């Protein structure tokens, strides 16, 4: 028990934790130094502390974000300016720029490789590992009131498997035959036959190895997230008092756990087809006039296995963003989130439905049209929980005195993007409309807006909001707002015109359109998109600079709870050590959204419900 002289200098939050908290005798277990934080290597590299692992995921994800973005700029240059010489890229791309009479052109094979790797790394490395990995790691123990994850060791392994996946994928970029070039979905036969294209050889082998490591990483992470949320919540933290961030990370982890093994099984069969001569996916194929000796396989089987992950994957990407947005919005609106339980049930029903809609990616793959009907119905039903969520976000900020800062602006931007992209999803969910639109830029525009840009917005909202928690300093607000407006306008400038050219029938995946007179009229639009993409990318560099500058030079955090949040992560000391709370664990007394209540701006979760106060939630 602390003596009174010590208590005088104590933070009021510490006093609350001291009084009502729960003593788990945490530091009594340690004999001679903290094994988690002694020494550079244990603290910064092979760290088992969830806060450090979160930052490792974030920075690795950012590096991949920059690389993936740069790849898109190169293929956008090809699409926007097919006639211009790309000789100036020769020092970077080497033999992939072919120079004829001083005019450099991008190797078409490499164009496909860029598109493929862009898709793979943005979907998996940035928006899964970078988003879910970062924020689940940072927030789950902090917001449920745990010392760390259930298994800090597996948590560390989860990052290092991701790192391994990254290294293998990065290495594949430098192969003389090029990285895999058959699309991020890696459909056979392009992915199954090493002789199918130059990227299908060593490039595809490394792609598969990388993704298998990645699946291991996701599973190790997911096991920890689920276990921690269910087993290590602090005293008083029942499920209905969890912030929506935790609900979304929790359900995301469940989806990942159930869907990633399926794609792993698909990859497993693919490896056998590639290396050991089985015929799971291959059937009566001629290559260079030679019939292969494989019979009896079905390439559609791979598509089923892939999309059984692939569709839940888009919710693995978007649900954490939704959770972050709910939390950030409620905090900056100074209002409880509207319809907390409806939000939770929506997340759960989106997760459930996500397993019933995978074949809507396969309407043109030759599946039975009657089966397609089943998938159409469930796809359209997803609009219901999605609309409930959008409604709740709008009603949360409606009538509030919303604090407009970089974090909260990105949260609003997320909703804007999610609505825009969600609406086109209703078009594409119908097989009748999807069949003509499927191979056009309409699809590219749809998924980039709804799960690419929107998820990035959620991620940025989270980074601006929790940056002080991660580094004890703030990101620069003005640069943050500049970043927001540049990204919002830029992203719409890139993707809005794509809907238009898609509806006009311009096919996606084409290297150039010079042999199709019908599409020559869109050359101007393509130029516009490319220029917009370059400008939008430059705005991201502002963010990157802001991020790394602020780690060392940003405005210092002076108070523990700069946003006036109710949740537990802001009750730790500014630089929380291993174990998060120096003494007792905080006990939770109320739900996470007591904003503007009883004439008070906010009431932290650790404050007991007063005598005359109504517990809003239970």
């Amino acid at each position: 028990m602390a003596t009174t002289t010590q208590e005088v200098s104590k933070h009021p939050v510490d006093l609350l934790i001291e009084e009502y908290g729960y003593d788990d005798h945490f530091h009594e277990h340690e004999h001679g130094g903290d094994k988690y934080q002694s020494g550079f290597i244990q603290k910064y590299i092979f760290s088992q502390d969830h806060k450090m692992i979160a930052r490792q995921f974030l920075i690795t994800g950012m590096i991949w974000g920059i690389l993936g973005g740069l790849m898109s700029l190169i293929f956008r240059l090809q699409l926007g300016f097919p006639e211009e010489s790309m000789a100036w890229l020769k020092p970077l791309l080497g033999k992939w720029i072919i120079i004829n009479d001083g005019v450099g052109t991008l190797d078409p094979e490499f164009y496909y490789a860029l598109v493929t790797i862009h898709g793979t790394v943005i979907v998996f490395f940035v928006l899964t590992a970078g988003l879910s990995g970062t924020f689940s790691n940072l927030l789950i123990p902090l917001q449920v009131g745990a010392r760390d994850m259930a298994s800090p060791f597996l948590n560390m392994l989860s990052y290092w498997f991701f790192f391994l996946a990254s290294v293998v994928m990065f290495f594949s970029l430098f192969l003389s035959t090029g990285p895999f070039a058959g699309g991020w979905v890696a459909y056979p036969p392009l992915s199954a036959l090493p002789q199918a294209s130059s990227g299908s050889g060593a490039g595809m082998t490394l792609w598969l190895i990388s993704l298998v490591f990645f699946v291991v990483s996701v599973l190790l992470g997911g096991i920890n997230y689920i276990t921690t949320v269910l087993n290590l919540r602090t005293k008083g933290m029942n499920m209905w008092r969890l912030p929506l961030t935790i609900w979304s990370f929790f359900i995301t982890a469940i989806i990942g756990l159930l869907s990633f093994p399926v794609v792993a099984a698909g990859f497993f069969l693919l490896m056998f087809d590639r290396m050991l001569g089985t015929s799971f996916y291959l059937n009566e194929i001629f290559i260079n006039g030679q019939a292969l000796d494989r019979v009896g396989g079905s390439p559609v089987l791979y598509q089923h296995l892939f999309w059984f992950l692939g569709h839940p994957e888009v919710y693995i990407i978007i649900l954490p963003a939704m959770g972050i947005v709910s939390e950030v919005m409620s905090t900056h609106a100074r209002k409880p989130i509207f319809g907390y339980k409806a939000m939770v049930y929506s997340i759960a029903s989106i997760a459930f439905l996500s397993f019933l809609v995978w074949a809507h990616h396969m309407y043109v793959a030759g599946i039975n049209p009657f089966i397609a009907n089943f998938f159409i119905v469930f796809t359209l039903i997803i609009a219901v929980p999605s609309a409930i969520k959008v409604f709740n976000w709008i009603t949360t900020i409606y009538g509030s005195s919303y604090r407009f800062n970089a974090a909260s602006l990105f949260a609003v931007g997320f909703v804007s993007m999610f609505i825009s992209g969600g609406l086109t999803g209703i078009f594409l969910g119908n097989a009748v409309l999807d069949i003509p639109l499927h191979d056009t830029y309409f699809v590219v525009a749809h998924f980039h807006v709804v799960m690419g840009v929107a998820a990035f917005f959620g991620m940025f909202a989270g980074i601006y909001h929790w940056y002080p928690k991660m580094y004890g300093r703030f990101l620069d607000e003005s640069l943050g707002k500049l970043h927001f407006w540049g990204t919002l306008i830029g992203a719409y400038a890139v993707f809005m015109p794509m809907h238009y050219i898609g509806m006009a029938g311009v096919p996606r995946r084409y290297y150039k359109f010079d042999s199709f007179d019908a599409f020559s009229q869109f050359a101007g639009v393509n130029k516009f998109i490319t220029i917009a993409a370059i400008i939008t990318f430059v705005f991201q560099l502002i963010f990157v600079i802001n991020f790394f500058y602020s780690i060392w030079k940003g405005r210092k955090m002076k108070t523990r709870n700069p946003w006036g949040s109710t949740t537990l992560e802001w009750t730790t000391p500014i630089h929380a050590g291993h174990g998060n709370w120096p003494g007792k664990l905080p006990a939770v007394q109320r739900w996470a959204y007591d904003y503007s209540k009883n004439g008070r701006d906010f009431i932290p979760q650790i404050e007991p419900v007063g005598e005359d106060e109504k517990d809003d939630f239970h």
Partner: protein
Amino acid sequence: MVKPVGPTYSEEQRLFQARKFGLWIGIAGMLMVFTSLTSAYIVRKAAGNWLEFKLPDVFFYNALLVLASSLALQMAYRMFKQQKFGLYKGLLSLTWFMGLAFLIGQYAGWQQMNEMGIFLQGNPSGSFIFILSGLHALHLLVGLTVLSVALIHAFSLPDRLTEHRKFRFELTLIFWHFLTFLWVYLMALWMYLA
């Protein structure tokens, strides 16, 4: 208002509980691999051009063997709790050898299939059997490694019943039973669909 209820067991037990739960979650993930391959198997079979053949006998005997090994391990666990350390070590070793025998048996089964003219390559009906039993064998190899660690502990640590060792044993037990279940399930599936 829900009354905040503090945990009634120690922090260590709480962490054990969490990790045991984590193992179940991991098992759910592994099960998904087999579930998806099952569905691929069923769908592919329904599509026709499917070679029917008789499963090697040794697969059946192996199902009995692995069931017996689960029983032995369960008994070992009971002996450990009753602090009959001699029996505990004996039964644990027996389980280990049964696991090894199972793997050897599986290998013989694959040989038997090859002799019948069923190879990994060729009609997917055979490939699927190789893949599913191979994946199971891979998991069993992990299980055998876990058992090896348990064996080393059993023979190197002093004969004492501690919470921590009991907990570790429980994890081993759960995983081993899962492997047994998996093989029995696969056999049931193939027999049902044959």
